[in-house]
């Protein structure tokens, strides 16, 4: 048998217990077949169009652009997708794949709850059993999404191990899958995990970038100058970036800067981490000198993760994509900015991208254009925002960078 290293240069791979090797090969095979199967693709496209509401708009944010006084900012409106974020692009594809493989049950991990809701939704649509693992801490801060998942017929399983956030939810989902892969598909929510997940999820999310590229071209007659997206595991950013990799368009991924640069204060895996192996792949990782995985912090549950997709590690290493960080406070300021100028309440995750886009737009100057992936809407974050605004939280609006 061939000796294989990662799928993305030195990153990626399949670092899993032997029990999962066969299910991952089965998944890879099923996916390769489905990708070539016109009827599968047609069914997926129909659901994306009629059910999820694609294509999503590429919206020119005129008041925002005017206020910033620089580049024209376009928002790729994934927040307008059914269930409120880009996550549905992936779960529709994976749940269709699960059905095709004859699996009657899907499991998922969730941080902010967006992927959990999107999985529960696709499972309801396709008549699959659904269980969602969610850290206890996240269940508290995203109570609304917990209730939504339950309404959709899913069972939400509280995860009480470790830091009780997204990383531990992935651990628990993997433990479930090791025992149940015969009849269960693990609907992984980001471009992380063992091969083929990073490629599978990327392909399903690339619809974001394909649409954006065509829309921008049609609108302006050229490609944008810059793309900006937030990076937790990295699915909305890879989805936007990937169809532009054959161009010279500048791309910037924005990580959770949290409250500082110390261990446990942020989720800046690519900016501040080192190479390691977690959740089945070799990538960047926030770890201590012994290789123990560090706790993370972000005001947005979806970016509160110590790992990152291996393809991002590869793009960073090649210098193709630039990665930077935005603090909790800057993200809060960006929520305000977008609400006031455009009447759009972004998810706290997406607000990280908006915050960076604001400072980039000023630098870039008029005549240039910038596409921001607005990966989700902010309704789920209202209680976090209230706590921050009314002083119930240690985090305050820090204003945007000059």
């Amino acid at each position: 048998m061939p000796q294989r290293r990662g799928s993305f240069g030195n990153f990626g791979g399949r670092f899993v217990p032997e029990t999962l090797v066969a299910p991952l090969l089965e998944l890879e095979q099923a996916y390769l077949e489905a990708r070539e199967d016109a009827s599968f693709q047609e069914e997926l496209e129909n659901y994306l169009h009629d059910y999820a509401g694609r294509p999503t708009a590429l919206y020119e944010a005129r008041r925002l652009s005017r206020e910033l006084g620089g580049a024209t900012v376009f928002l790729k409106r994934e927040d307008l997708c059914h269930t409120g974020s880009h996550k549905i692009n992936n779960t529709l594809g994976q749940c269709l794949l699960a059905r095709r493989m004859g699996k009657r049950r899907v499991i998922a991990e969730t941080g902010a709850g967006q992927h959990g809701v999107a999985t529960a939704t696709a499972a309801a649509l396709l008549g699959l059993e659904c269980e969602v693992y969610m850290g206890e801490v996240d269940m508290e801060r995203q109570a609304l999404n917990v209730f939504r998942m339950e309404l959709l017929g899913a069972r939400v399983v509280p995860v009480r191990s470790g830091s009780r956030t997204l990383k531990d939810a992935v651990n628990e989902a993997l433990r479930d899958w090791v025992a149940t892969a015969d009849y269960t598909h693990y609907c992984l929510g980001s471009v992380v995990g063992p091969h083929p997940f990073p490629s599978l999820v990327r392909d399903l999310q690339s619809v974001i970038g394909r649409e954006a590229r065509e829309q921008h071209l049609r609108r302006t007659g050229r490609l944008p100058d810059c793309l900006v997206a937030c990076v937790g595991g990295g699915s909305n950013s890879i989805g936007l970036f990937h169809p532009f990799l054959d161009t010279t368009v500048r791309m910037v991924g924005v990580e959770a800067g949290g409250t500082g640069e110390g261990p446990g204060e942020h989720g800046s895996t690519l900016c501040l981490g080192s190479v390691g192996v977690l959740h089945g792949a070799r990538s960047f990782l926030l770890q201590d000198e012994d290789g123990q995985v560090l706790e993370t912090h972000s005001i947005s549950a979806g970016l509160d993760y110590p790992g990152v997709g291996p393809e991002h590690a590869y793009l960073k290493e090649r210098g193709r994509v630039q990665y930077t960080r935005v603090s909790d406070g800057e993200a809060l300021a960006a929520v305000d900015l977008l609400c006031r100028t455009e009447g759009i309440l972004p998810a706290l995750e997406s607000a990280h991208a908006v915050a960076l886009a604001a400072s980039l737009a000023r630098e870039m100057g008029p005549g240039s254009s910038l596409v921001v992936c607005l990966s989700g809407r902010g309704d789920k974050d209202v209680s976090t925002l209230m706590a921050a605004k009314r002083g119930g939280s240690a985090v305050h609006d820090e204003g945007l960078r000059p």
Partner: protein
Amino acid sequence: MNRIDEMFRGSDGKAVLIGFTTAGFPDGESSLRLAQGLLAHCDALELGIPFSDPVLDGPVIQESSLRALRAGFRPRDVFPLAQRLRELSDKPLLLMTYYNPVHRLGHAPFAAAAAAAGIDGVLIPDLPPEEMGDWKEVASQHGLHTVLFASMTTPPERLRYLGEMTGGFLYCFAVKGTTGLRDSLSRDLAPFLKRVRSCCSVPLAAGLGVSNPEQCREVAGMADGVVVGSALVKSALDAIAAGLDPAPAAAELAAELKRSLQRT
């Protein structure tokens, strides 16, 4: 010759008992006594390196791992622990570790430290052979066996490959799932071990979910070794919860398990 090979060669057709405990559990000093007590009755001992994200472990070993980490135990502390056990016993010692701590320290430094401490074999459950890079080679240069795993989901062709690649023995997962106690053995275990036997000529040890003397005896009829982990760690945890010394409690269970194998 590697002590693991000697153990299987000298076992006289009887299944050997391989115990497991988490290194550094419940704390550095007690961990040595706990391991020593187990080693007195088991034929070999696996020391688990505590890791922050033990995805293949159920609640019992997760708990022991967490306690060891909270007590300040670091992966590199396993080497002096093994060294002290080696001074007390000539039985095979193995390290069970997730891959990231090995990756972090580096293959060569890890293998060198393990060999110097008197370790005979290393088990890395989240490192399938395709991802090993130079690990197996480096380990074997230091005289260490790299023990591979087989699962009920593994097809025959791959079983043959794993049988050729493994060192010392092939660790056969007795359940599909994580470590932990089970009420009964899987009905699929016997056909699985038969399948592995027909594909591989190395000694086979079965573990995961083997919890009591009856189950040990049953497995002993089908494999060359039985691995018991969670049950031993749980007896230690139970003793601690009752305000008792965990070392003799775990040793007593190990003795009972060993007796059950001698009667087969």
